[in-house]
């Protein structure tokens, strides 16, 4: 046996031009040594299995997954990471500029892997084409961008002097203000900031879908394995339950005797990194007794209740909307289309697994973690820890993708409990499998839908019954159940409508928020049936939609009437040229077995909470030295809130983006801007930022009695105000400062006007909707059942594009996720728990996307702006399914439309 301290284990190599030596245990991953022993936190860990490529580094010039290489194998080699390349390598510098100009980075977690892989390509091929780029980057997964901007950035990297950035005013396409740091690998995510001596926490999770368990001698185990402590349900001082909807707090931090889904937490081990790393998890003192598991809604409705304290069946909740008389309208319809549609669990698959650290300062527990909702995290922790709010501080890190799942608690309660118990800093980063097992998913849906139309093409009645599998715990299931009946009509005028949605507990993973909250599932059913109706009527599917589209002054199915800003018709009309062009190429291709088809679909989404208060507060202040500080608490999870909120604030205050200093969503110093969800930040927090900017401007102008048209100029920290040809220099230092050191400060709140829904779901649930229509062209190989998207066109009514570059980014990313949902993604507990069994689109899967920005101003939106995040995904899957149908005549009613499913449907339809 080798001596642990032997110099034999020392590995020497060159890291970014410096000779380094590292004393790593045999077989340690190079990625781990680089990050933890050599401080190279620019090397990101997404999967530790070679599936995501985030950890790509150059070893002797070749891009490799650092997570699969034993550190000892780097002996004598030259290792380059993104931070070294960005600092010194001319190719990388040009590439970084191009990435920023093209907005090739969104959340930034995959960006180091993309950059490093692309630098290797550029060294070989200085002017690569798109195919070469796609090939070289095929091993790096991105969940935000849809890849097209990345391809554009690499192809254009050799072009010097990319356009000068715009000025940052509302409507100008400036690159994101935090982009440069992400591209250079300097951004700090959940696992990048723990102090070096932090203890490490590891969660013990259920290996079965449903099981009882008992613990043996945990404290003895902790002692004999050098652990600091082991936490279980008994260590939760407050309420061992959390949730996101009041009244639905049903998920324990640690399960108590029974685990209800595979991956549920039952205990947490805390100890020094070496002790936790060395643990043999097979000898833990836990005994499991597996129980029958109900994995589908049907099975669960026939099974014993998972939560006997919450009801006698597994039905968790219902949503209902009714107007007119659906059944009689359907009976009177000239044509009726109906069908059963099914979708599966969909995994968010952000490339950054949940991570963070916590420590205790002056009796206050401080949690640093990636999150979409710092304010909600704090409130939930207060109940779990039985501590007042002011003794809990949430300091969000950068977020490497969220898409809804980082709204829920993940690492936070474990870290907070452990820090309070050990009085030490404690850290954790979920492994990929752990992240996929334990995080929330998109709800599987089973939807029975019937829609009628008259000969003149007008809709006549719609009935929707949907069961949504919410998994073992409620999470955002109640929201899905509420939202679906409101949205299942699509953005169309339907006077006779009945929609019911049920959320049902099963032994699946908790299903929660995922870009669209159930609306994408419903859109698949409704938009598919619209094509069937158009076919029965002999109408053009696009014109059928335009004829029935909602308009200003037309009631929605909840009876809500908008006087302005209903942009769906304009979106659909914007697709006409592409629709007509695509028709010319429909049908046969060069290969008789491959058929090309074009499909369209539309979508809408109400921004913000459904008929519930939904305030955002934005604070800003001016320091005596003239620094203008914006407390930007709207979490930027890659979508660009840091940039957009600042643009709105700057415009309202009448200063430039460059004049602002930003402080993030730290709950100690920044007011709650609400959660980053439901496409609400640009709309709700944007309004708060606008009000705040206007208030601060008014205060500043009042100092010098300037009129409302006065100009504010910040130069070298000195604020001057020009009014009617006169320049004033307000003396900020003469003013008293508040507790935070501001001479002037403004804090403004905006809460969108909504009205409650009655028992028939009638009311005004949202202050605004956003609208979208997508067109997809696909090739279907009728022999093999494979579907290849050829291109997509996405028209989006965003009211006002605060930043068109970021709008395109959201659209591309949403389209890519919608494509994945349509064609390849299905999470199956125990079976697709990693990124090689669970497939998300790679760079080769996403075809060119044309974005058409429509601006129908919203009366409530800041500068007319509407939300966008969810909308970008909703129409994509039905547009692809409609394209498959128009290519082949075959209707796929269950996603994902894998080759096996498509081929089976083709066979049934008589295809050879």
């Amino acid at each position, binding site marked *: 046996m080798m001596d642990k301290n032997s110099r034999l284990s020392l590995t020497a190599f060159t890291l970014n031009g410096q000779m380094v030596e590292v004393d790593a245990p045999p077989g340690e991953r190079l990625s781990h040594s680089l990050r933890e022993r050599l401080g190279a936190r620019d090397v990101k860990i997404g999967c*530790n299995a070679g*599936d995501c490529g985030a950890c*790509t580094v150059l070893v002797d010039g070749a891009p490799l997954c650092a997570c699969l*290489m034993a550190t000892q194998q780097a002996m004598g080699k030259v290792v380059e990471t993104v931070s070294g390349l960005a600092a010194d390598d001319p190719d990388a510098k040009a590439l970084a500029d191009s990435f920023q100009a093209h907005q090739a980075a969104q959340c930034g977690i995959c960006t180091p892997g993309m950059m490093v892989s692309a630098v290797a390509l550029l060294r070989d091929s200085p002017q690569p084409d798109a195919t070469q780029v796609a090939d070289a980057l095929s091993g790096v997964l991105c969940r935000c961008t849809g890849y097209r901007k990345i391809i554009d950035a690499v192809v254009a990297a050799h072009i010097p002097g990319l356009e000068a950035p715009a000025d940052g005013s509302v409507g100008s396409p400036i690159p994101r203000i935090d982009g440069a740091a992400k591209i250079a690998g300097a951004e700090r995510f959940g696992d990048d900031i723990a102090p070096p001596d932090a203890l490490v926490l590891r969660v013990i999770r259920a290996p079965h879908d449903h099981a009882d368990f008992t613990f043996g001698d945990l404290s003895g185990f902790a002692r004999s394995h050098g652990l600091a402590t082991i936490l279980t349900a008994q260590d939760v001082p407050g309420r061992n339950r959390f949730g996101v909807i009041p009244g639905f707090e049903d998920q324990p931090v640690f399960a108590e005797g029974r685990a209800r889904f595979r991956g549920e937490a039952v205990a947490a081990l805390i100890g020094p990194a070496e002790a936790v790393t060395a643990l043999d998890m097979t000898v833990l003192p836990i005994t499991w007794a597996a129980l029958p598991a109900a994995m589908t809604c049907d099975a669960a409705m026939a099974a014993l209740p998972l939560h006997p304290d919450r009801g006698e069946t597994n039905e968790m909740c219902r949503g209902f909307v009714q107007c007119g008389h659906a059944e009689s309208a359907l009976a009177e319809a000239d044509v009726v289309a109906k069908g059963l549609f099914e979708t599966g669990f969909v995994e968010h698959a952000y490339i950054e697994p949940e991570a963070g650290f916590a420590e205790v300062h002056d009796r206050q527990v401080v949690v640093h973690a990636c999150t979409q909702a710092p304010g909600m995290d704090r409130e939930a922790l207060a109940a779990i820890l039985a501590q007042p709010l002011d003794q809990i501080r949430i300091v969000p890190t950068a977020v490497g993708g969220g898409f809804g799942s980082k709204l829920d608690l993940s690492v936070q309660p474990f870290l907070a409990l452990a820090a309070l118990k050990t009085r030490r800093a404690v850290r954790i980063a979920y492994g990929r499998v752990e992240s996929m097992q334990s995080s929330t998913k998109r709800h599987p849906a089973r939807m029975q839908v019937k829609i009628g139309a008259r000969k003149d093409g007008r809709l006549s009645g719609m009935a929707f019954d949907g069961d949504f599998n919410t998994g073992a715990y409620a999470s955002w299931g109640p929201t899905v159940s509420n939202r679906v009946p409101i949205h299942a009509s699509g953005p169309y005028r339907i006077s006779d409508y009945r929609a019911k949605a049920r959320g049902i507990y099963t032994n699946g993973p908790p299903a929660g928020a995922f870009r669209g909250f159930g609306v994408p599932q419903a859109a698949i059913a409704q938009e598919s049936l619209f094509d069937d109706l158009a076919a029965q009527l002999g109408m053009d599917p696009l014109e059928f939609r335009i004829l029935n589209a909602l308009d200003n002054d037309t009631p929605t199915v909840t009876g809500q009437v908008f006087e302005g800003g209903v942009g769906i018709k304009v979106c659909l009309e914007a697709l006409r040229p592409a629709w007509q062009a695509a028709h010319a190429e429909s049908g046969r291709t060069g290969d008789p077995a491959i058929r090309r088809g074009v499909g369209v679909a539309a979508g809408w989404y109400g921004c913000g909470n459904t008929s519930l208060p939904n305030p955002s507060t934005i604070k800003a202040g001016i320091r005596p030295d003239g620094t203008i500080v914006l407390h930007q608490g709207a979490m930027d999870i890659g979508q660009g809130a840091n940039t957009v909120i600042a643009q709105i604030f700057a415009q309202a205050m009448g200063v430039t983006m460059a004049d602002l200093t930003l402080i993030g969503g730290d709950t100690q110093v920044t007011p709650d801007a609400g959660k980053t969800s439901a496409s609400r930040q640009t709309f709700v927090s944007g309004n708060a930022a606008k009000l705040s900017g206007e208030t601060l401007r008014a205060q500043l102008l009042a100092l010098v009695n300037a009129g409302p048209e006065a100009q504010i100029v910040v130069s070298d920290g000195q604020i001057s105000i020009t009014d009617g040809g006169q320049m004033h220099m307000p003396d900020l230092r003469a003013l008293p400062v508040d507790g935070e050191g501001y001479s002037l400060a403004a804090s403004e709140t905006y809460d969108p006007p909504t009205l409650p829904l009655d028992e028939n779901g009638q009311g005004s649930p949202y202050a605004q909707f956003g609208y979208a229509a997508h067109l997809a062209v696909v090739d279907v190989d009728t*022999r*093999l059942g494979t579907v290849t998207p050829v291109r997509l066109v996405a028209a989006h009514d965003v009211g006002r594009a605060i930043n068109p570059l970021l709008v395109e980014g959201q659209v591309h990313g949403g389209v890519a996720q919608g494509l994945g949902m349509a064609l390849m993604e299905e999470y199956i507990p125990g079976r697709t728990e990693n990124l090689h069994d669970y497939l998300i689109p790679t*760079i080769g*899967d996403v075809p060119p996307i044309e974005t058409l920005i429509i601006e129908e101003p919203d009366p409530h939106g800041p500068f007319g702006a509407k939300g966008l995040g969810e909308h970008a995904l909703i129409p994509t899957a039905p547009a692809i399914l409609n394209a498959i149908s128009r290519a082949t005549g075959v209707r796929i009613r269950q996603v*994902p439309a894998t080759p096996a499913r498509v081929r089976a449907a083709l066979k049934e339809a008589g295809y050879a």
Partner: protein
Amino acid sequence: MNPLTYEKATSSADALERHDGDAAKFLGAGTNLVDLMREGIATPTRLIDVTGLAQGIEEQSDGGLRIGAGVSNTAVADDTTIRAEYPALSRAILAGASAQIRNMATVGGNILQRTRCSYFYDVAGSRCNKRTPGEGCDAIGGFNRAHGILGVSDSCIATHPSDMSVALSLYDAVINVEGDQGTRSIPINDFYVLPGDTPDIENQLNPGELIVSVDLPAPSANRRATYRKVRDRASYAFALVSVAGSLIIEDGLVVDAGISLGGVAPKPWRATEAEAAIVGSPPIEETFRNAAQIALADATTQPGNVFKTELAQRVIVAVLQDLAGDAQ
């Protein structure tokens, strides 16, 4: 957990010398072994690094090629002779994994990679006869759309995940190994062992034996070959079905045919009876359909993977038709 040691071998003889029993493992690029160690499926205590050994690709006097076991997958795929003379091998590797993995992965490691069956990996939650002999197999009757339909048994329906080996099988490659007992050469089509009731035994390597090289026989004149893979996304996914196929056509008749299947069996599946049925027939769709029927005649399916039979037949026909079309 046992402490782990790492040592770098300076030659194949040195590597063999260092290998002292079951607790030792030869470490190639680690793209599979490091994963297996993380999951607790492989639990070596001694890693003997053999990367850097056996690096060359050399032409042999008989016109064939010898590829060192330590050559990276990228180097094999990019080799000009291989691209010209063994195109199915180059294409299979490029269809196989991401560029990052191909840059790391070695020829020897690729041949020896273990199944991606999710039950095999699910140490705590599932039974697996390959991992724990005699325990049972949860894939049978479970979620098995990725699983095998040929050569499987009641004990195990896992597939071999390699793309490269499917092409090596088509070209009748020979694997050269060294061990305590000296050197020996094993045709790749005999190298893998079907699961039967001992699915933990996957190949003919004895403990301590090391793959040192792979020989490709001299290329046949006028032989056309290619590789086609059907998967659920564009890149970096394991095959639902893949086919390495070859044809030699003379005077309007097939004089030689090769079919090797991936994604459907515990090993690269050489469809010799189907090949024989093609030889002597005209290269037309009917011939290929007939061969595809024969190739899958013994398929044993599960509800989840029943689609693979027809899919494999169709890919066989498509590949052979493409080859026949190219020849005209």
